[in-house]
């Protein structure tokens, strides 16, 4: 056996351990014996801890209009083991329930637990509570707990504001802040900004006697923790625009997304059919929720972020931009069009032939766009469509399609821009060409985009080549950080190409052959592109993207009206009205407004 050179170090380790032990014992002696603050006499017996719920933060729109506020409601709790004999009729009258129902509820509570409080009656209104509160002392074992209900002064924006509801077991497990029966933001803004809005719960420590009567604050409230109210937030939404948009979309299926291009802030996010958020609050909630859930028009779905559509002709601009950037197309490029006789894609319009790029955009020529798309795919190597496809794919993703923005909008979908692999698996490797996937040229085929992505694309054009990921956050408290959270994204296409597109899109609205020429505004120049999207399940979807004014744009939007027909018939006039409303404050074209407001495209289908 070799003697170890460091054997003496065991004494030092020994010493460290004994030192820690002594420090602990001194500390405990101080806490438990010397320090009086933590002790209370045994006669004070029961201490009751009452959770203080903070008021939830309010939500304002970007002009400071109140969108969501709180209203008090009260839950009646019961602890069966503390219940003594009392006048049942009296309580039933106060609560406005029958004796039978009373017994049912009481049995249920007893079954749950004799000792733990359970909810006897949920969300008693403030008025009813006024009577109950005074007489509660007559009913030992019953308590009230103040809760918060959300109220909405405007019956709009239900989907994007979201709602609050009781936590699920999963949510409790995920974040131990929540206790059973707490409220949590379940969707929309309420969900994303939950931590900001919720505040912090507090606790009041009360001394109660054996009959559960309150004897006052424990230690003059030294141990109370006051609740911290949730912070208010301001979101980028514009109430006027949102409300007007929802009106225009009434009795239509579809969505509108409007973005401020210079900041990426969402001005309105409309989905239709929609509902008044106030109907999903309080005791009526579950009833109404089931009605909405079973509605065949799916009013609970937020089409603006969860609806995925073929982009149709609006996507032609994407292909033109890619063509310009890849130098296989110039404004002077001429292609011929044989109208409905064109192959492989027929053109739906009759027009001059051959035509140049600007005319092709203005009149949405399919033949022209097919030739552009073919050049993109065959450009680097005519025998390797994958190479060309990947160039195309990267540009499309770069323009904000095919993936979520991951900002503060819960539940948005990716859409779908397929990788070349998909075509390899459908048609086998080396067995597909530009011709095989020709429908992509005119925005049909496998590609799917969300209305949010389309609006963002309009914002990209408005900005001539960059965007801020669309978001709602616009609080003064966070303002300086907003652009830090969602930094500017510059696209892979040079600004000069956008200038050309802007002019062409102006022609769509103001040119003598433009597809949206009926809806131009005298007061302001705006740019747009129509889309009519074939739809296997019914009538075509009507689509329009636009921004205004042409120079220094302040609004970019996408409008989709499902199963409505031509883009020029429905989406374009709605977009035009919204632009007028947003830029001018009021709409002068009453004939157009009336036609849009009064059309019912749902029951007529």
């Amino acid at each position: 056996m070799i003697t170890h050179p460091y054997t003496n170090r065991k004494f030092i380790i020994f010493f460290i351990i004994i030192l820690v032990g002594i420090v602990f014992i001194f500390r405990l002696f101080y806490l438990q014996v010397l320090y009086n603050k933590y002790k209370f006499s045994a006669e004070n017996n029961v201490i009751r801890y009452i959770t203080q719920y903070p008021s939830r933060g309010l939500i304002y729109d970007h002009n400071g209009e109140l969108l969501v506020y709180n209203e008090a409601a009260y839950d009646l709790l019961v602890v069966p083991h503390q219940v003594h004999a009392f006048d049942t009729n009296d309580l039933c009258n106060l609560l406005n329930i029958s004796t039978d129902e009373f017994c049912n509820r009481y049995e249920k509570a007893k079954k749950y637990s004799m000792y733990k409080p359970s909810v006897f009656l949920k969300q008693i209104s403030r008025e009813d509570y006024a009577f109950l509160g005074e007489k509660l002392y007559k009913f030992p074992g019953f308590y009230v707990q103040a809760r918060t209900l959300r109220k909405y002064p405007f019956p709009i924006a239900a989907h994007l504001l979201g709602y609050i509801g009781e936590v699920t077991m999963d949510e409790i497990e995920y974040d131990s802040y929540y206790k059973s029966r707490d409220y949590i933001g379940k969707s929309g803004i309420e969900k994303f900004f939950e931590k900001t809005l919720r505040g912090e719960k507090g606790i009041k420590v009360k001394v109660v006697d054996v009959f559960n009567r309150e004897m006052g604050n424990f230690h003059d409230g030294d141990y109370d923790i006051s609740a911290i109210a949730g912070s208010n937030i301001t979101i980028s939404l514009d109430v006027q625009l949102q409300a007007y948009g929802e009106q225009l979309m009434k009795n239509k299926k579809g969505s509108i997304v409007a973005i401020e291009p210079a900041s990426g802030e969402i001005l309105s996010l409309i989905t239709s059919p929609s509902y008044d958020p106030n109907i999903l609050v309080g005791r009526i909630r579950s009833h109404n929720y089931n009605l909405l859930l079973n509605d065949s028009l799916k009013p609970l779905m937020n089409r603006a972020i969860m609806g995925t559509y073929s982009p149709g002709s609006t996507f032609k601009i994407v292909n033109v931009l890619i063509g310009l950037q890849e130098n296989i197309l110039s404004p002077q490029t001429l292609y011929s069009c044989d109208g409905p006789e064109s192959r492989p894609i027929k053109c739906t319009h009759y027009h001059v032939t051959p035509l140049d790029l600007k005319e092709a955009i203005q009149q949405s020529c399919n033949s022209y766009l097919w030739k552009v798309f073919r050049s993109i795919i065959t450009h680097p190597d005519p025998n390797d469509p994958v190479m060309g496809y990947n160039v195309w794919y990267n540009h499309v993703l770069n323009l904000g399609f095919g993936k979520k923005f991951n900002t503060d909008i819960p539940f948005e979908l990716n859409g779908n821009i397929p990788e070349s692999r998909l075509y390899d698996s459908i048609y086998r490797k080396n067995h597909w060409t530009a011709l095989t996937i020709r429908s992509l040229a005119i925005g049909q085929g496998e590609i799917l985009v969300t209305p949010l992505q389309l609006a963002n694309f309009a914002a990209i054009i408005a900005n001539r080549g960059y965007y801020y990921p669309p978001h709602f956050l616009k609080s003064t408290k966070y303002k300086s950080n907003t652009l830090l959270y969602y930094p500017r994204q510059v696209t892979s296409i040079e600004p000069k190409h956008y200038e050309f597109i802007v002019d062409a899109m102006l022609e769509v609205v103001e040119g003598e052959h433009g597809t949206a020429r009926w809806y131009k505004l005298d007061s302001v120049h705006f740019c747009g592109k129509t889309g009519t999207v074939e739809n296997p399940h019914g009538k075509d979807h009507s689509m329009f993207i636009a921004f205004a004014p042409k120079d220094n744009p302040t609004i970019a939007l996408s409008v989709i009206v499902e199963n409505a027909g031509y883009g020029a018939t429905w989406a374009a006039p709605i977009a035009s009205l919204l632009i007028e409303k947003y830029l001018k404050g009021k709409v002068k074209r009453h004939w157009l407004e009336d036609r849009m407001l009064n059309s019912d495209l749902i029951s007529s289908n």
Partner: protein
Amino acid sequence: MRESKSIFLNIDWIAILLFFMLILMGWLNIYAAVFNEEHRSIFDITQRYGKQLIWIAATVILILVILIIDPKFFSTFAYGIYALSLLFLIGVLLFGKEVSGSRSWFQIGSLGIQPSEFAKFATALALSKYLSTFNFSLQKVKSLIISLAIILTPAILIFLQNDTGSAIIFIAFILVLYREGLSGSIMITGIAIIVLFLLTLLIHELYIIGGLLLLSLVLLFFIKRTTGNILKLSLIFLISALFVFSVNFAFDNLLSEHQQTRIRVLIGIEKDIHGAGYNVHQSKIAIGSGGFAGKGYLKGTQTKYNFVPEQDTDFIFCTVGEEWGFLGSFIVISLFILFLFKLIRMAERQKSNFSRIYGYCVISIIFFHFLINIGMTIGLMPVIGIPLPFFSYGGSSLWAFTILLFIFIRQDAYRFQIL
């Protein structure tokens, strides 16, 4: 036959007695922490004390298995066991279940397994094996680096699971390295780094740099002013300054706001009675309210109202303090110290280097858990979520500590066979 008989003869029964005393006291307190009038039966497996009872029963089987295994098995397969545990740690990162923000559990049916608990004894085995190789010396830089790599690899993997508490425990192995000859100056450097780190969070970095500069100038006055010394001193100064700035930068830019608050609360700059500070505040009330003799078993009011979160796991010592008072706390602390002394004596009587080093690994790990856990409940240590050995509710941690300990007891029982 003769051999297996001698194993049980040579077993240190006092150590085993202390072990079972700790387990029993732990279970009594879990029962108290979870107790409610509706579920009184101790075998009620819907309640945590019932489950813990099952785990304790399983522990006895585990102990028998370990005692039967040839003690050489653990030294022979030390690296293999270590590699396996690393695999599990990586596996849990990829396939684990996320609970309260950290991904550190495997869910098998209703049973949750936490690989980080088992990584401790695996690391202890590998470290003991490495440090006990012939002619090993911690004076060699390469040896030191490899030792640290053995310790830090699992620690980093656990840190990546977002389970900071379990990762921090690996610091305990420094004590083993110290016992085996880690130079004192490295220890001092380590302490200096920690002090500098804390100071950076506490005061403005320019004051610290100023202080460092002043300190360097004063030192310059005392040391021999050769070129070499001056160069060394200015290098140390530069490195410290750089360290201060990078800590500051990392704190402001790399940590989330939540993590920043947590650290600020930990070192006491911020009183956060709602978040991390809440548990400690409540825990101190519970312990303080126990007084000298306690409120009596099952009579703790703080306990009953579930006021201290995680009272049956990380904050189990609250129940001891509240129901058994200062007397009970004193006994529990004494029992832990006694147990650690017993283990030091056992470690020092080992003839093989492997067994001794492994013994110190066991001591260090148990000691660090004891230090941090109880220190946390009485407000002397930051809130780091780690269990109190043998006391806290939880199968993984109970089994892991049992395995850790009994491998050592098995080695110890075998000590006479090494000549």
